[in-house]
């Protein structure tokens, strides 16, 4: 479910083409002096120059390898400035982008998988704000995590969709919660693409007038409350897979900063407090604790990556955060149930007193977590 405020992480796709950094692919040939020749082989990636002046850069790419490749210009945090996918063996392509001064990398990804083979690119001229390289590392690692979560989600959601399409109610129910874990772990990133979340993760009460209800929760209601799978549900299942594949493709373009990582962690705890502790998220399936754990996992990942910097600036804060993450994980572990499909006790079996205890533990973590962003930037 989308957070009310969607401020911290914003999609960069359109911005990239319009403002400071332009990353729009062009077919026009540009074999001038400013062009960088990129030779992408199966195991090598060579570039004709390592330093260029700020402004428009042109990559003349040639795939000399045997596999289709992908070439990207990357920010230090692995955010994509510009990319071209699916450059076939033996073909050439020209990619242009507008770049400000700073450090970049050019990546060739033979087979369009993995981190690729990298070459440094320094863009000179103008001024550029320096950022702690440890933070760039944290952002790059978080982006990789977000991508991994999206990649891992696709087969799980496919399994869920296949069960729905086979009309297998029980198999579909069993596959429901696991298909949400990767999404829930990185929800702030997913939500930064404003158009995906409304299609995949909207609850009945979150619908706008005239909006068709699609996604996980529409299927959840069919499976648990209506207890039947019809043609509509099978269509919804296919749409869910497609929407999530769209998400998987776009994760690399999300704008992620150290601040947005920290705030994203805090927002994940807000999600828990608002929707999971109350049992509103998965009101038909009662698999809220699975989402709860995933939200906490995602927040913890972001925190762990920022911790090396945060602890040099506010040791008391990281000590408290370590303690409260452990306390919440320990409490959640008491709700493990090996007999259920998602590994957790059904939330309708969690008593009012237990919910209060969970809520207290969430507050105990969320309050110091709200101070992480400041500790990272100050």
């Amino acid at each position, binding site marked *: 479910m989308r957070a009310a405020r969607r401020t911290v992480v914003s999609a960069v796709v359109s911005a990239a083409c319009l403002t400071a950094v332009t990353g729009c692919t062009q077919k026009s040939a540009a074999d001038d002096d400013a062009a960088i020749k990129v030779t992408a082989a199966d195991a090598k990636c060579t570039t004709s120059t390592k330093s260029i002046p700020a402004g428009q850069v042109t990559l003349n790419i040639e795939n000399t390898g045997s596999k289709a490749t992908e070439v990207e210009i990357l920010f230090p945090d692995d955010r994509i400035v510009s990319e071209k996918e699916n450059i076939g063996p033996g073909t050439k392509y020209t990619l242009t982008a507008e770049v400000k001064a700073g450090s970049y990398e050019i990546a060739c990804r033979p087979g369009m998988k993995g981190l690729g083979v990298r070459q440094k690119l320094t863009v000179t001229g103008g001024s550029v704000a320096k950022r702690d390289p440890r933070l760039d590392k944290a952002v790059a690692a978080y982006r990789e995590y977000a991508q991994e979560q999206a990649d891992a989600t696709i087969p799980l959601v496919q399994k869920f969709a296949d069960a729905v399409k086979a009309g297998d109610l029980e198999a579909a129910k069993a596959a429901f919660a696991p298909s949400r874990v990767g999404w829930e772990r990185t929800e702030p990133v997913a939500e930064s693409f404003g158009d995906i979340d409304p299609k995949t993760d909207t609850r009945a009460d979150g619908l706008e007038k005239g909006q068709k209800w699609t996604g996980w929760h529409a299927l959840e209601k069919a499976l648990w409350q209506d207890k039947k799978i019809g043609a509509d549900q099978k269509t919804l299942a296919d749409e869910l897979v497609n929407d999530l594949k769209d998400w998987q493709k776009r994760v690399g373009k999300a704008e992620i900063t150290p601040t947005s990582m920290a705030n994203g962690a805090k927002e994940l705890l807000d999600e828990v407090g608002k929707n999971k502790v109350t049992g509103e998220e998965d009101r038909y399936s009662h698999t809220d604790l699975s989402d709860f754990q995933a939200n906490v996992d995602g927040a913890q990942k972001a925190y762990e990556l920022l911790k090396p910097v945060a602890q040099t600036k506010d040791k008391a804060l990281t000590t*408290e955060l370590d303690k409260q993450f452990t306390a919440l994980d320990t409490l959640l572990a008491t709700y493990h149930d090996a007999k259920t499909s998602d590994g957790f006790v059904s939330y309708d079996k969690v008593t*009012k007193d237990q919910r209060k205890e969970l809520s*207290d533990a969430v*507050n105990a973590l969320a*309050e110091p977590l*709200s*101070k992480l962003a*400041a500790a990272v*930037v*100050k």
Partner: protein
Amino acid sequence: MTDTQSTTPEATAAAPTRRSLIGWGGAGLALGAAAAGGAVAMARTGNDVDPAGADTGAAVAFHGAHQAGIATAVQDRLHFAAFDVKTDDRAEFVQLMKDWTEAARRMTAGRTVGDGAYGGLAEAPPDDTGEALGLKPSRLTLTIGFGPGLFDRFGLTGRRPEALVDLPQFAGDNLDKSRTGGDLCIQACADDPQVAVHAIRNLARIGFGKVAIRWSQLGFGKTSSTTPDAQTPRNLMGFKDGTRNIAGTETDRLKKYVWVGEGDGTAWMNGGSYLVARRIRMDIESWDRTSLQEQEDVFGRDKGTGAPVGKAKEHDKPFLKAMKPDAHVRLAHPDSNDGITILRRGYSFTDGTDGLGRLDAGLFFLAYMRDVRKGFIPLQRKLSAQDALNEYIQHVGSAVFAVPPGVRDQDDWWGRTLLSEEA
């Protein structure tokens, strides 16, 4: 939060204060009310606030031999919160007491918490939540109490006062667990409800991870006063309440019935008191359908003037035998109870409706006393068994707390006499 040992309010006043925004709010206008808050004035020293604490906009001194909010002239509004302690770390709990004390010191003076509500780092949530900016100190008092459960922690078992007993089950009690008990309480009283709520909210926020709110109660109309010269307030049943309450000026009665003293057996409580809180739901609709005669018989007072049965004026000495045997005033009067006297400081409440079209309303009873065993318990035993009022009320929440002595000065903190190593 800053450490109380090293920081004076002046030094931390860089952030805008509520008071600096609104000026002094007529703090000097309290002469006429000075007598009413006299006990407070006597108890406080060395602070630049209105000593009487009876002007609605002024600040009440935080430091003193007794905590403010007991003998202090009763303010118009209440936010009361009970907390469960979550931490097992004594040092962490002590630090919370210090942090809370500093925050309370600032808020009761009309200042913001920590570094204020704005102007700080854009990436960080502000220390203060901000809703009291521009409001007067509003005679805010913050009073802390320690519940029985606290003494099961931090090696305090041997320090639990004998007078802090668990309340017995009284006839007719229908206690809701989620509105009962608590390891700690904070009573926030102010003339502006937003100031009281702001105080509880900010203390709760500072406490996350160490303590968690168990329940809280808003109150809106004082039902007792500690200023007998002022008009006696009415409860939601429409009757004047607390006519014979202990006044803030009655030093002798306060000493005899309210303040724990030498020889009470618990040195760390000297200057403190015990607090009983009861959420008493009124069957409002039934009461409103009750004849005037029955209503007056139930209380033993005239509804209009508040005069006791057979008397002309509110403050006339009641002739108890003229009242029905089960009349509330007759049963509760000190003369019927070997002189038992408690200081009442309750508020009316209305928490909306109950889903059945009835007001969820009543009296949030707060009473301070020197010994619960000699105060509330014998009184309530009798009332719960005999009071005619029981037909129209039900006790639905309950808690009892040991209220430690006052914070003496800038270096002192809430609970020091109980928790400090040298204490």
